[in-house]
């Protein structure tokens, strides 16, 4: 299946989505400072190209699952920024009714099967989601995201083996931002090329420039097609970087300024902006206006979240079981 190279509209969509995520996350940090967002909050700033490439590569019906660094994926899946911000605020209009928070965004309507908090816990789930697609005979695939820290979990190995054995339509995607909290990849393994871990299971795998929407798009689209054709899973290692600390409480002292600056030089938003201007698809002025529009959209999301109420206490007993259940009350 020869696909068209992404053109004008795709680039503009990438720019729009990445800018939305960047501004949304900056706003989240600000709201965290004001205590409107609490608990663990992991920002996606720096990794936006992955979300951009995902958005353009996936087809209707495809499923996505990821870990707790999930705001970017949720937005890329088309969940309304207001619903994501309301979730961060813990309000009833959040995409998980305020019950999930930053780490647990979900939306069935958007084929987003969630943000998951136990490192590596979503890896078998991703394969299971794919199993259901295979079982039902659809052409849908599951994009299953994980961090570079998550590949150290045993769940990955058990899942890779079965996914290959059963040729499940899943693309496993490691967003390698080189750190799991304060621990760099070098300090956790002798196999620095994470994609090679798939070799033990004869699973096709490759390394991809995770700072480039184009590269991410191309790799996801191509490997998803393989899965759609029944050829089974692929493991992609996307080399990317998070500009901020692991979570709001991490000063990120374990890395150098230079390392961070080097990645900012290939900032995917800047690169895409330049490309759009170079190709004369939009003027600088038009892009600035688009940016303002996005800022207004984020401001609207905050306003929406602010106006949504907190859940009532009796919500505690809802969404625990599918039917009435005799909870113990003291």
């Amino acid at each position, binding site marked *: 299946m020869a696909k068209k190279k992404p053109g004008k509209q795709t680039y503009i969509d990438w720019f729009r989505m990445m800018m939305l995520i960047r501004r949304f996350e900056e706003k989240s940090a600000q709201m965290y400072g004001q205590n409107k967002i*609490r*608990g*663990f909050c992991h920002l996606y700033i720096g990794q936006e190209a992955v979300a951009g490439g995902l958005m353009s590569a996936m087809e209707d019906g495809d499923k996505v699952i990821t870990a707790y660094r999930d705001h970017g994926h949720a937005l890329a899946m088309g969940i309304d920024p207001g619903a994501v911000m309301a979730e961060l605020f*813990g*309000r009833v209009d959040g995409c*998980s009714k*305020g*019950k*999930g*928070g*930053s*780490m*647990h965004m979900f939306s069935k309507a958007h084929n987003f099967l969630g943000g*998951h*908090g*136990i*490192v*590596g*816990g979503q890896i078998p789930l991703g394969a299971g989601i794919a199993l259901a697609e295979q079982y039902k005979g659809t052409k849908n695939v599951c994009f299953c995201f994980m961090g570079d*820290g*998550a590949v*150290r*979990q*045993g769940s990955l190995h058990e899942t890779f083996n079965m996914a290959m054995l059963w040729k499940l339509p899943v693309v496993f995607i490691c967003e390698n931002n080189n750190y*799991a*909290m*304060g*621990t760099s990849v070098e*300090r*956790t*393994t002798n196999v620095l090329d994470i994609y090679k871990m798939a070799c033990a299971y004869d699973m096709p795998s490759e390394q991809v420039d995770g700072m480039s929407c184009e590269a991410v798009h191309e790799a996801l689209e191509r490997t998803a097609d393989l899965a759609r054709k029944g050829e089974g899973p692929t493991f992609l290692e996307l080399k990317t970087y998070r500009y901020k600390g692991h979570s709001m409480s991490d000063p990120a002292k*374990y890395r150098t300024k230079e390392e961070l600056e080097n990645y900012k030089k290939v900032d995917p938003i800047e690169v895409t902006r330049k490309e759009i201007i170079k190709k004369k698809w939009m003027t600088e002025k038009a892009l600035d206006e688009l940016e303002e529009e996005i800022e207004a959209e984020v401001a609207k999301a905050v306003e929406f979240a602010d106006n949504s109420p*907190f*859940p*009532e*206490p009796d*919500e*505690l*007993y809802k969404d*625990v079981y599918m039917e009435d259940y005799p*909870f*113990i*009350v*003291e």
Partner: protein
Amino acid sequence: MARELQIREALREAMNEEMRADENIFLIGEEVAEYNGAYKVSQGMLEEFGEKRVIDTPIAELGFAGISVGAAMNGLRPIVEFMTFNFSLVAIDQVINSAAKMNSMSGGEFFCPMVFRGPTGSAGQLGAQHSQNFENWYANCPGLKVVVLSNAYNAKGLLKSAIRDNDPVIFMESEQMYGLKHEVPEEEYLIPLGQANIQKSGEDVTIVSFGKMMRVCEEAVVALAEKGIDAELIDLQTVRPIDYKTIADSIIKTNRCIIVEEAWPLASISSEISYMMSQMVFDHLDAPIKRVTTRDVPLPYAPTLVDAFLPNVERIVQAVDAVMYR
């Protein structure tokens, strides 16, 4: 001489002192060495003991818990840090099926002198997967001992005992308590495992609790005093084995008892104590035992739901009123 220490400092002192005394002890876990601990409990330990004895791991709980069990079988005394006990579930097979069984299964050929430690329970708005109490899960399993600290003094004394113990000990802390300060003696001391502490004696009602809930109970005791009720407050400190006798003796004096526990109610430490007290002191009870636990649901993120979920002073006072028929 006593000085004030944060709980994290008291824990660190306990590990440092024991590691200086016995070179077979080592600390292993995620971010314990170079990052100085996710919650800074192990600050400076890499510097003092070197990377042989303060070992950073990948995020591989099943692997490093099992590796530590193997090391314990072969003569070492590991201290395994779980970043929180929520993540110990990834490793629970090695804790239950290996560490807890080894002595019995091998007919006494092998034993596992080791500590699994880390924070338990909720810590604000962390959502369902990061807010769980497994004290009763581990306490259910023969072969383990289970300790839950509640202040800097017992943090140090209990951890030293846990490290010296020749059985696998689950040692539970709290993210929200690491920064709290309490008096800790300069001179060495141990607190034996399996002994409850009567933190405040009283005549009217017995309140049994442990861990972070002790803070809430202390507040409740003050609120009760204002109402003219003199409560006795017992800190279990160890939930396997449980010091039933101290609780029973207290009930013989007060004739009334409530239990406060941060955990889901079914098959909890509080159910267990209620059963044993009905066996031991039924005739001394003037009212059925009451308990205050978390609500019987996963803990959601929203602040209103966190408030509704956790035991609080109001609910404790209500429970006391109920057993006092007030």
